[in-house]
């Protein structure tokens, strides 16, 4: 650790620091050229598929319903009930598909964005299900001149598959309400998780009434066939993404812990080795979900970014010890088998929109940025915020990268209220440090407070929103 000017944001040009005696210390190869850019094409294609699917779900109703046939209120309500039912059935499929961990989804959209979309779409799905249920009940009650409760009773008694459909709706309501952030934070995580798993049951329980009572789906024909095919397709995606692909990956690469190294008093790096590591298609900045198959940890899966780009010889994750699970990682023995699912994420050099980048890291948030630096074009800039000099991680590597990839690195040390950091984390300070900041992609990774503040400052400095990339595991 070289000494730091604690309160000054000083530019450090890289000096090739000879590495101390670490067995698994990286000896970096000559830097490869920057990654070719991957545009948002994949994501746009998926969005197009989503909208086309939505149209295809509602179109049968449009074609089946003669114009002018919805004369009175019950007819109108029935129509609305059928539309919301079709939409709900479709959205439920999309919800499950988004969580299927398919490689294409994880790479094109990224797990974090998928989680956000899943939450928003979940709220929409809940509303669609409740609307479908209440519209149909009210409409049929009106048509048959029964009370609402009497109609619910007759639906449950006389119609095929309606009991399981009501159960499915109940499950979805429970899952939806516990997904609300305020409620979710007070529930134990395991309870929330297992309740959420029952939504697979809702998928299957809700299916019966769609094809036995659905006005657009009860008849054999292309619509019904397509609907059933969509369900089978999603189940296949689920099996592939959650079971087959991870099995294939882990049988192929057989990852094991090689070494655990302390980077600072509260941060460790875990080095992994395995077979055919040169064939893992991972970009710097992406993450895997890891299970360490030792006595206490096999049932927990945690996402950690790689803290070095793929090199074909080892993988490394750099983890800050914050809780019981991460504390246990300190005691990992070399040779422990590791189960990994991934890679996932769009927080990579390939997703840049400009040729130059500014990276802002806070504490252990340096990990994905350190991996990305190897793949960004030369001329990037890195601002590293840390509370004390001891919190600066991977320092020798950063200095080496600064030289090898012509990266400007600023270590900004101190609390956020100290004059140095306060000056850097302001629109004027940023512009002084990086004059062309508005023409760069900005990658942010660190504690939520720092990231939020940095986004505000960047927006004030005039950086367009689409040039700001965030890595956050917090929903």
């Amino acid at each position, binding site marked *: 650790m070289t000494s730091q000017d604690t309160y000054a944001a000083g530019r450090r040009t890289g000096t090739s620091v000879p590495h101390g005696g670490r067995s698994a210390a990286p000896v970096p190869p000559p830097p490869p050229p920057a990654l070719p850019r991957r545009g948002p094409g994949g994501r746009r294609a998926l969005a197009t598929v989503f*909208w*086309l699917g*939505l*149209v295809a779900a*509602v*179109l049968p*109703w*449009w*074609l*089946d*319903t*003669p*114009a*002018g*046939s*919805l*004369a*009175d209120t019950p*007819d*109108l309500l*029935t*129509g*609305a009930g059928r*539309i*919301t039912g079709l*939409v709900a059935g479709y959205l439920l499929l999309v919800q499950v598909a988004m969580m299927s961990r398919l490689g294409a989804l994880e790479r094109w959209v990224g797990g974090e964005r998928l989680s956000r*979309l899943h*939450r*928003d*779409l979940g*709220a*929409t799905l809940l*509303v*669609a299900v409740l*609307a479908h249920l209440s519209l*149909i009940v009210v409409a*049929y009650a009106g*048509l*048959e001149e029964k009370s609402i409760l009497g109609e619910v009773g007759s*639906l449950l008694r*006389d*119609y*095929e598959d*309606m009991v399981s459909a009501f159960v499915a709706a109940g499950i979805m309501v429970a899952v939806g309400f516990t997904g609300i952030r305020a409620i979710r934070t007070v529930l134990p995580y395991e309870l929330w998780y297992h309740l959420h798993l029952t939504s697979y049951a809702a998928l299957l329980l809700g299916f019966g009434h769609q094809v036995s*009572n659905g*006005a657009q789906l*009860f*008849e*054999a*024909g*292309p*619509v019904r066939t397509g609907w059933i095919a969509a369900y089978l397709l999603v189940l296949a995606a689920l099996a592939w993404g959650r079971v087959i692909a991870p099995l294939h990956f882990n049988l192929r690469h057989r990852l094991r812990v090689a070494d655990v190294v302390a980077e600072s008093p509260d941060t460790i790096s875990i080095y992994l080795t395995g077979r055919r590591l040169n064939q893992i298609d991972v970009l710097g900045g992406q993450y895997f979900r890891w299970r360490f198959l030792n006595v206490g940890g096999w049932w927990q899966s945690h996402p950690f970014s790689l803290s070095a780009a793929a090199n074909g010889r080892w993988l490394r994750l750099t983890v800050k010890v914050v809780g019981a699970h991460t504390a246990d990682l300190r005691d990992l023995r070399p040779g422990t088998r590791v189960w990994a699912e991934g890679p996932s994420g769009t927080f990579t050099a390939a997703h840049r929109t400009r040729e130059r980048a500014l990276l802002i890291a806070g504490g252990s948030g340096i990990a994905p940025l350190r991996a990305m630096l190897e793949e960004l074009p030369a001329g990037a800039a890195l601002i590293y915020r840390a509370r004390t000099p001891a919190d600066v991680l991977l320092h020798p590597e950063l200095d080496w990268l600064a030289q090898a990839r012509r990266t400007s690195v600023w270590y900004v040390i101190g609390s956020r209220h100290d004059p140095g950091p306060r000056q850097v984390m302001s629109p004027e300070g940023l512009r002084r440090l990086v004059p062309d900041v508005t023409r760069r992609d900005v990658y942010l990774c660190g504690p939520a407070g720092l990231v939020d503040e940095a986004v505000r400052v960047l927006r004030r400095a005039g950086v367009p929103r689409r040039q700001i990339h965030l890595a956050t595991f917090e929903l």
Partner: protein
Amino acid sequence: MRRAVLAITGLAASTTALVVLKGSPGTSQAGQDLPADQASVAPGASGPGVTPAPGPAGSGPAPSTRPSAGASRTPDTKQTGVTAKATTAAPRTTTTAPKPSTRTVTGPTVTYRYGSLQVQITLSGTRIVNATGLGMPQSGGSGLRSDDVQARYSGTSGEVVAKQSANLNTVSGATYTSNAYKQSLQAAIDKA
């Protein structure tokens, strides 16, 4: 969360729009092309608009791209033992003034999963004023379905009289019964 609110609002708005577009009887001729509002639900949708066959009482069933329940004159291949061929009627040209007298027309017996039925309609001139299903099964689950269908379709204030055609909303939970009813009804209307 902003996105969720947006999506829910969009869902409500587009559902309302779709139902209103289909619902207003005034649009039977004019509002047939997919309206621009469709874009809110379906960016880039270009479904074929449904054009009703111009009939004297606007009772022509709409040809849709697939034989749909109640909107087709082709015999439903799913039904078994259909004893009457549904005639593919050309649009009737009413040159003679209809006699303003009531008469009953009975459709053919249609056999379906739970039994068989015949639909009898009462006409005043060309207007249907009453309808009823005859010989419908009366016991167990089939009976319940018969009752549901009768309650919804038949009678002087049932759906047949309201719609003046065989384009009836399928009674949920009684799809086979509904289909048989509509088939016999269609044939009766063609005969009338």
